[in-house]
């Protein structure tokens, strides 16, 4: 297609943008995905791959419901991706574990779970596991672990395969991928958005901003407030091991290929996606404390990636009032919410409906 005019321009080709572009392009709309190049800050390349329900929204019931709904949409979404792209994203919703190294931490987790359960009228399920019950699930666990929360709704996918499947899928649906477009301005005139930069101007009737940390700046151009800051997570990855871990945990999970991902650090360091020896050492020490069997397992890579954090850590779904047709999406749970973004959020954008779910995630909540 030679034309630079589209029904929808999705800005950002990460997991969030790819899901929405995938959803929009399924509806036979002409969709452009405007993306950065190879070295952009990409949370999508650095994430942990958890489809995670437990703990989320314990203090914000709408988020708890939204997460639960998103996890529920995952099985059919994974199947759909497999059928349409041939890529198996390896969804395994086995239930997941959050382990605590001491009793106080375990008790604090317990209280959050109780609250979550009461928010959702018991729909959110969980079990508290003692060390011996935990050992029945994972024999390799250390006796030093106090216990764990088990949540049957949790699971994990291969996030890199998901990323590839979405890129393949949206292009199969006819969406046009326009990479290496660094946007300088977005102008709204006569009901059309003009996206400008060091490239041929792109025009679209509607625009969806999914540009992660760039969203604050881009949002201002179309009258949407999307407050986001970077929060760095560092991850370690080990050599491939024979399968031994049947459940994903918040700190350690075994990938399809056999390698372990070890993570869950959080730092506010601005736009620095580097790694530091002390955090890497902390992650390694915690992992071996939980799983002594990992003492002699080798780390072959580490990385830092920047989470896209809103002020309260919950997603933002915001339509523009000054520039009708502009939408902003920001969240740090691009994997957990993937199916919901592909389905519900693209439907919201297509129909312009303001359902209950969406109104709970307007950025106006930050201005109270």
């Amino acid at each position, binding site marked *: 297609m030679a034309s630079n005019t589209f029904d929808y321009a999705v800005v950002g080709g990460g997991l969030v943008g790819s899901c929405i572009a995938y959803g929009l392009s399924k509806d036979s709309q002409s969709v452009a995905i405007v993306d950065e190049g*190879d*070295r952009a800050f990409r949370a999508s*390349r650095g994430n942990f791959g958890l489809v995670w329900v437990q703990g989320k929204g314990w203090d914000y019931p709408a988020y708890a419901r939204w997460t639960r709904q998103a996890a529920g949409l995952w099985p059919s979404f994974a199947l759909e991706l497999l059928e349409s792209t041939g890529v198996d994203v390896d969804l395994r919703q086995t239930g997941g574990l959050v382990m605590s190294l001491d009793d106080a931490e375990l008790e604090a987790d317990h209280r959050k779970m109780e609250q979550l359960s009461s928010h959702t009228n018991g729909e959110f399920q969980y079990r508290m596991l003692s060390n011996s019950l935990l050992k029945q699930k994972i024999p390799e666990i250390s006796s030093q672990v106090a216990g764990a929360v088990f949540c049957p709704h949790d699971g994990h996918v291969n996030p890199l395969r998901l990323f590839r499947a979405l890129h393949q899928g949206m292009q199969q649906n006819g969406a046009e991928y326009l990479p290496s477009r660094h946007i300088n301005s977005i102008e709204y005139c006569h009901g059309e958005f003009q996206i400008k930069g060091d490239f041929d101007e792109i025009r679209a009737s509607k625009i969806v901003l999914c540009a992660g940390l760039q969203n604050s700046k881009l949002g201002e151009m179309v009258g949407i407030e999307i407050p986001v800051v970077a929060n760095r997570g560092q991850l370690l990855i080990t050599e491939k091991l024979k399968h031994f871990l049947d459940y994903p945990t918040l700190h350690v999970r075994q990938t399809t290929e056999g390698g372990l991902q*070890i993570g869950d650090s959080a730092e506010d360091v601005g736009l620095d996606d580097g790694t530091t020896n*002390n955090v890497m050492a902390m992650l390694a020490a915690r992992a071996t404390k939980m799983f002594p069997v990992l003492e002699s397992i080798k780390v072959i890579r*580490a990385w830092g990636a920047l989470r896209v954090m809103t002020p309260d850590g919950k997603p933002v779904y915001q339509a523009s009032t000054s520039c009708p047709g502009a939408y902003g999406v920001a969240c740090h749970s691009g994997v957990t919410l993937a199916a919901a973004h592909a389905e519900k959020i693209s439907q919201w954008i297509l129909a312009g409906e303001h359902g209950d779910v969406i109104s709970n995630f307007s950025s106006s909540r930050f201005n109270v």
Partner: protein
Amino acid sequence: MGEKCPVVVVGAGPAGLTAATLISQYDVDVTLLDDQLSPGGQIYRQVSDSKIANPETVLGADYTGGKALVDRFLESSARYVPGASVWGVNRKREVSYLRNDASFFLQTDHLILSVGCQERPMPFPGWQLPGVLTAGAAQIMLKSQAMAPEKAPILVGSGPLLLLLAWQYLNLGLKVKAIVETTQTQHYFHALKHLPGAIVGRQQLVKGLKFLKDIRAAGIAVYKGASEIRALGDQVLEGICFSSRGKQHTLNAELVFIHQGVTPQLQLPKLAECELEYLVSQKCWSAKTDQFCESTVEGVHLIGDGQQINGAEVAEISGQICALNVLKKLKRIDQEDFDRLSKPLLVKKKRQLKLRQFLDALYTPSDIFITPSDETMVCRCEEVSAATIREIARGGCQGPNQAKSFSRCGMGHCQGRFCEATVSALIAKEQDRSVADIGFYRVRPPIRPLTLGQLGRGQSDDRETN
């Protein structure tokens, strides 16, 4: 974090040894970390303790000549830390390394990286079969292990190392089954225009011609302009087929040594956030430095083939220039001394580089190895084919880092050392862009594996006592 050292050198090849020795002569405390157990780098490996009878006759005087350099270093006051596996550095010049199962951290104002080169990947169908080794590996076997092929090997590729290896085997009375040269005819013509400049290095050229003459005299079959190379075999290497001058050849072989030149090992400069530049003449990335070998990151100095491929002579000269620059910064020599001492070195280096232009033009890698056929395994660790990379590139993937996410290429143990060049070149070719535009893999620590236990324990309590 970690022990503060005035000067830290990483790598004990000609560049690092020269720099460390010279700096230590001015009563500066220099620490040299090296992953091998004896100094010399790959080029002079085991030179101070060769286990081969008559090493000068067999391996050549260029090799044994390195002993003087090693001896000078060992006699110097520099603190030598062999067996140190450096797994991380950063722009603050913090160095992390592992030695005898213990972790150590150093910090310095003057970090000199001289980590040398690696074999340029030479992908073709079957290059992953056991029995296919790099020519560099065969040479290391000879120099450091005193081991020679049991079966007559076939040497495939191009570059001076291949001829040198054949010549060394002849000196040992060993058979070489064939030399399959992939140098393209047009490269000889390109090289000719650099010949006048290369005359200063005529000794080396004469040596090369001598090797060729001896090889011919020994009656070794030499196949020229070879392409369509394929290693044959199910579990292990059984043979090789290729076309040369319009004819197909199939040869049985249990050992094939391949070579296509060398490229700088840029993991540490990348971790230190030094700027790189793509050298079209060498078809590889190199690290930017000023003429006194300082990188774009203050206090990080890059010398030898780990910065840019220029060979051992230039590595030594750069080691001296770099040392003088560091000594000036440490106020051990003044500007006047610095100018006086560095000037002749800069002139000498410039002259040496003329020979390099000739060699680069002659031995420029063939396109068949830059962008191999679809079935070729590009990433040996994750077993990703060229076809997969091409498919991803056609989907708009902008560079190697995204390709890594999409295909797992570069995610294995070698961390992309043997697929980076190919992945970038394939994307460039598919999208009709330059490799310089496509870019390179971002590198993350640890660049050498360490266990979770070693990482988690942090700084070892035992101080190094060397």
